[in-house]
Every structure is written in structure tokens, then in C-alpha cells.
């Protein structure tokens, strides 16, 4: 099963390769990875998408926790979360396809960043299904280049403060 793991790690030389090396050295899979500094410049936030059965995920979480440069590990996908990914898609467009390309972009609320007589570069942001859907639709036109940021995710806040939630009532019957 797919898991989105959010890592807080020291923003210093070598910490990214410690995490990456852990995955390659133990044969774990990385599907996507995105890393950037946080408000505290000494700390980076990494979002890592991986997959495996419960035993493998348990090992991944423990091994990540063991890495000294890793400060905090959270399996975001264990509870409610929102995720986003951005893709830049350079679509090859013959004259008769140009309108279709724009229509598809419009449907996905994607924007055109660059255009040339034979191509559009389309920017789309959304969850992974949305990004995959637009790629799927644009593919018949001919995708010249595709870059994706990898997914980032953040946990949802509870909709109500925990204390205010009504206690479950004992069943009457």
C-alpha cells in the first residue's frame, strides 16, 4: 500500500543522502520525493511517497527515525491529509490540436506558461489523480517533455476541537 511520509530533517550537508541511502541500501522503494527548507532555515521538510506492506512500512518508519539527521517522522497517510503536486507538461501541438490542448487545460484549470507555434507548456496543480488524468488526456496530442514536483502533503486539522466532539452515546437497547 502507498504511504506518504513527512520527514523533518536537519538542513545540512549529507542529510538527504542519508535518507536516500537508507532506501537504496535496504531495498525500499521511493516513488517520489520532494524536499525544501522550512520557516526554520536549519530544518528541511521532506515528503516521501513509498509503498510496502505493514511490516515494511513499520521498518521504514523505524529506520527513518534512527537516522540521526531526521528529527521527526510522520506517516501522513495514516490520517486525513491534503496533497498537491505540480506538473509542467510541454505538449506538441499540430495546428488542428491547438484548440483541444487549451480546452483540456481549461477543464483542469491548468494554465499555459509558454507557447510556441508547435507547443504549449501547461502547468497543472492538483492531487495525483488530477495530474495523471490531464497527462492521460494530453498524451494523444504528443507530450514532448514532462516534469513533476513529486507530491507534497500536509495533515488536515480536525474540523472541530477534540474536546467539543460529542461522546458516543451508550446504545439504548
Amino acid at each position, binding site marked *: 500500500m502507498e504511504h506518504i511520509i513527512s520527514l523533518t*530533517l*536537519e538542513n545540512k*550537508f*549529507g542529510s538527504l*543522502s*542519508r535518507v536516500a*541511502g537508507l532506501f537504496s*541500501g535496504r531495498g525500499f522503494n521511493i516513488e517520489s520525493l520532494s524536499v525544501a527548507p522550512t520557516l526554520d532555515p536549519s530544518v528541511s521538510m521532506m515528503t516521501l511517497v513509498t509503498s510496502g506492506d505493514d*511490516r515494511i512500512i*513499520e*521498518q521504514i518508519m*523505524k*529506520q527513518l*527515525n*534512527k*537516522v*540521526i*539527521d*531526521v*528529527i521527526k517522522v510522520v506517516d501522513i497517510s495514516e490520517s486525513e491529509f491534503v496533497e498537491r503536486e505540480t506538473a509542467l507538461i510541454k505538449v506538441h501541438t499540430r495546428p488542428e490540436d491547438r484548440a483541444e490542448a487549451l480546452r483540456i487545460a481549461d477543464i483542469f484549470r491548468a494554465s499555459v506558461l509558454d507557447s510556441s507555434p508547435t507547443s504549449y507548456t501547461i502547468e497543472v496543480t492538483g492531487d495525483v489523480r488530477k495530474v495523471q488524468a490531464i497527462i492521460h488526456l494530453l498524451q494523444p496530442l504528443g507530450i514532448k517533455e514532462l516534469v513533476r514536483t513529486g507530491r507534497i502533503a500536509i495533515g488536515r486539522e480536525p474540523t472541530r476541537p477534540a474536546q467539543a466532539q460529542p461522546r458516543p452515546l451508550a446504545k439504548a437497547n
Partner: protein
Amino acid sequence: MQLTGAEIFLESLKREGVDTLFALPGGVVLKIFDVLHQQKDIRVILTRHEQGAGHMAEGYAKATGKPGVALITSGPGMTNVITALADAYMDSVPMVCFSGQVPSGMIGNDAFQEADNTGLSRPCTKYNFLVKDVNDLAQTIKEAFYIASTGRPGPVLVDIPKDISMDKGEFHYPKSVSIRGYNPTYDGSKWKIKQAADAIMKSKRPILYIGGGVQHSGASAEVKELAEMTHIPVDMTLMALGCFPGNHPLSLGMLGMHGTYAANMAMHYSDLVIAVGARFDDRVTGKVAEFCPTAKIIHIDIDPTSIRKNIHVDIPIVGDCKRVLIELNNILRATVNGNQKERRKPWWDQLSAWQQEHPLAYIQEPEAQIKPQYLIDRLYELTADRDPIVSTDVGQHQMWAAQYFKLQNPQTWLTSGGLGTMGFGFPAAMGAQAAFPNRLVLCIAGDGSIQMNTQELATAVIEKLPVKVFVINNRFHGMVRQWQDLFYEGRYSCSYLDNVPDFVKLAEAYGAAGVRIETVGDVDAGIQEALSIDRPVFIDVPVYQYENCYPMIPAGGSNHEMLLEDPPDLHKPKSTHKTAVQSDSDTVLTA
């Protein structure tokens, strides 16, 4: 106080209480060696190879419990020490290795003797540092020692570029460190420990399975108290030998691939395995699917990644073995009632039956060639009262040493378990001898593995490290030959060593002493003679060449399926090997 990086290095080591440094110089560490030359607080042992320096640091660490320290140069110095780092990482040996690096400005330029030291060592160290500013050096060294010796211990590398050793900086040695991503858990969950105590009280066929973690946390006394209070038998892993007295009535000896019959049967048929500081290595579990089929498993370990890595655990307890066992013993002391010996009698009847059914055994005919087991057995008997430190290399002789040398005390057993590094034993013994100049330090080696680090004979002689190296000489890579006999129809591909050097002359060439023991009748006298020499000694013992090590669980087999002796159809050529120095290539292979 303004000091150069090299001086900061020295002062920091002194603050860490380092008394011995295993080192080999090179271009980029000359400044540091220059400073070391002008002081007397730290003994600098010049080794002949960086691998030797690394293993000596390991031997020192295993025997003292303090981090061993090595200092080597860039490039080839670094690549040579990698084996020792990987070995220390697998066996959780506290060690701090300092490597020289080309000047900061040249890093990445393929400079002379440059290697990516941090990159090379990343997968085989607990942590590593590249020092980029001389003002960070003291803090880095403090952190290195802290990381190496706390939690689950391990090797730490500190890479020091040449300019950093020469730059001047302010020296303040930090009193304490705090690393936000590193907070080992020492105290086990009280609730889980209570569960473990309940499980122990309910269990009918419990077994203690202790590993190297018992040594690292100094929990031998607690293990003994637990075992004696509850009358539970004790299985030891290779790494735990010495942590529980080998001749204690509750000891079943070593378990695993070459463990005793009783130790392995006890695991297989137990209903409760209490794993303490052990990691369920594949050499212990055998076939995972059939491992301890009827047992509940309690696993106490400081490293959460060890828990449920290989097998399912019912009661995981993350914490320091000693602290957890103190807590567990406190609970049990209050709850244990009645005669535990009486209560465990049915289980012990079974265990004793297993022990009597297939004890460790070998046949030594008085006129025949020496059997390796006999030599080790006699060595054990003749030195037991001197509480020796025993190191081994890797292979058959290692397993026989583990089986027959019944150690009494922790920190007396130096062996390469996880990585299985041939060439480990001799330098490790020297490291221990450097720490304890007045103790008897024995190395049990094979003729194959000793040849991987004989250059350290020079170090042993010059540094007056009078280790006694027993070379169990069968002119084979014995364990490889055993597997080829059992699983490759006796095709000895690259396992026969043919021309083995004359180990007596080799030792003498370096200024050490050499002794050869050739007959069964000479064994005791030969051992006594070697022990009486106050220099390093190589004792060459030509042995029966085709002896196999049993019991043996074939790789991938289950723990109760042990081979206990040579299969009846096994082709065994007659051993023609009389001495180690037969010059004509004899007929071993064509016999």
C-alpha cells in the same frame, strides 16, 4: 585559547579520556601526527595497515567497553579502514575513526589521495562528519564520542581536511551535547515489562536468548539474576559469549547454525522466548517461517529497528537491556513464589535429555593428527583460571572456539559476528592487549584468515603486545571446504590453500616467537611453552584437515533440523598433511 586544529584534536581526545590511538600517517594528517609526537598522554600505536588499526580499535573497544579510536589518512587510508568500520557497525562496536582529507578547497577535484570519505563510510557508520570549520572541531569530536558510545553503539567517522588541522581556532570543549534527532530510549515501557513478567510466570518452557546487547549495556549480572531466580535456561548468540558463564548449569551454550543441539531444540520447542539484546539474525533463526513455532516472543532491545525486523514479536520492549532487566527482576522478585526449580522440572528434564542425547563431541585418537576441537578444549582447560581474553578470526575455528571455550566473563570475547571478517582476530587481540597489558590475550585463528593481517606482527613486536596466536592449520578455508563437502559434492573450488607459509618462521622473521605443536602428546606442553613466552607468539598447529563443524543447521533449514555428524556417504580424503611446511605440493586434492 587559540589552538591549531591538530592541537584541538589532541586536547579533545584527552578530554574524552582516550589513552590509546591506533594510527597510520599520510600526507594530509601530518600536522596531527606532529602534535601527537610532542605529547605523552596518549599512546600512539603505529599499525602496518589501516584495516589493522580499525580492528585494533574494535578489539580495544570490545575489551574495555570504551570507544576505540583510530586515526588514518585520506584516500587509500580511508578505503582500507572501511572493512573495520563495516565490521564495527554490524557488531555495534563503539569506535571513533578520524580520517584525513585533502584541503577543503580541493575536495571534489580528484586531488592526490582523495576519496569521498563521508560518502564511502555513510552506509557502514552510525554517523559521520566532515569538519568544515576549525571552530566546529571540538563540538564535532564531542558529538562523535557521544553518538559512538550511547544508544546502540557503533562506529563514527570524523573527516578532517588538512587545512582544518592547521587553522587556528578558539578551543572550548563542550561539557554536554544534545542532538535533536538522536534520543535513544533507555527505559522500557513499564506496562510492557509487566506483561513480560506475567508471560514469564505463565510460561512452561521459557528460554532466555541473549545477544551482544547484554555486553554493550553491561547487563550480565541482571541476566544471571533473572535466569537463577526463575530457573530459565540461557541460550547465547555468538556475540553474547561470556555474558553468561559458559559452564553455568543453566547455560545451554551457543545457539544458531553451529549452536549446541540443546540450545537449538530449546528454541524450537519453547513456549516463550525472552530475547535480550539480540537481533534474530539469520544465523540464529534459520528458516524464519519455522522459527520457534510454538513460542510467544518477548524482545528487549535498545534499537527499535531490530524489533520485528525479521520475525513477529508479541511483547516488544524498547530500552536499555540493563535497565529493563532491573525493572523486570524487581517485578519478578515480588511475584516469584514456590520452588522454581521444581516448577521447571519437566522442561529441564527435556533439556537435559537433549543435552545428553547430543552433547558437543569429537573423537581424538591419541596417535592420530590433532583435532581442532581438542586443541581448543585443552587451551580452554589450561587457561581457564587466568580469565583470558579470547579473539577469533572467522570460520570453522571460530565456531569451535565458540563451542568449546567456555568463557566466564563479559568483554573477554572478541569475534566478528555480523560481518564475518577474516583477519579480524589478530589485530583485535592486539587492541585488547594494548588496553590490558597484563592480561592473557589469546587469538584463535585459521591458516586462511590469519594471512589476511599478518603484517601486524611488526606492530605486535614493536609495541610489545604479547598476544598468543593459535593458528589452527588445516591448509584449507575450512568452512568453505565443509560447505563444498556437504553441498557441492566435494569439489574444492579455491578452498585448498596449498602453499601455507611456515608460521613459525614467519613469526620469527618479525622478531616474534614461533611454536609448532604437531602431535597430540605435545599439545599441553606446547600450549604451556607458548604461554610462558613474554613476546607475541604464533603457535602453528597442523590439524586433521577434513574435520567438519557440527551441529550444523544447513542454510535455510529449520532450527530442529541439525546435521550432527558427517553424512555416511561423505567422501573424506585421507589427510596427508603432516606439517605446515611440506614443500612439495602434496596429494590432498588427488587423493
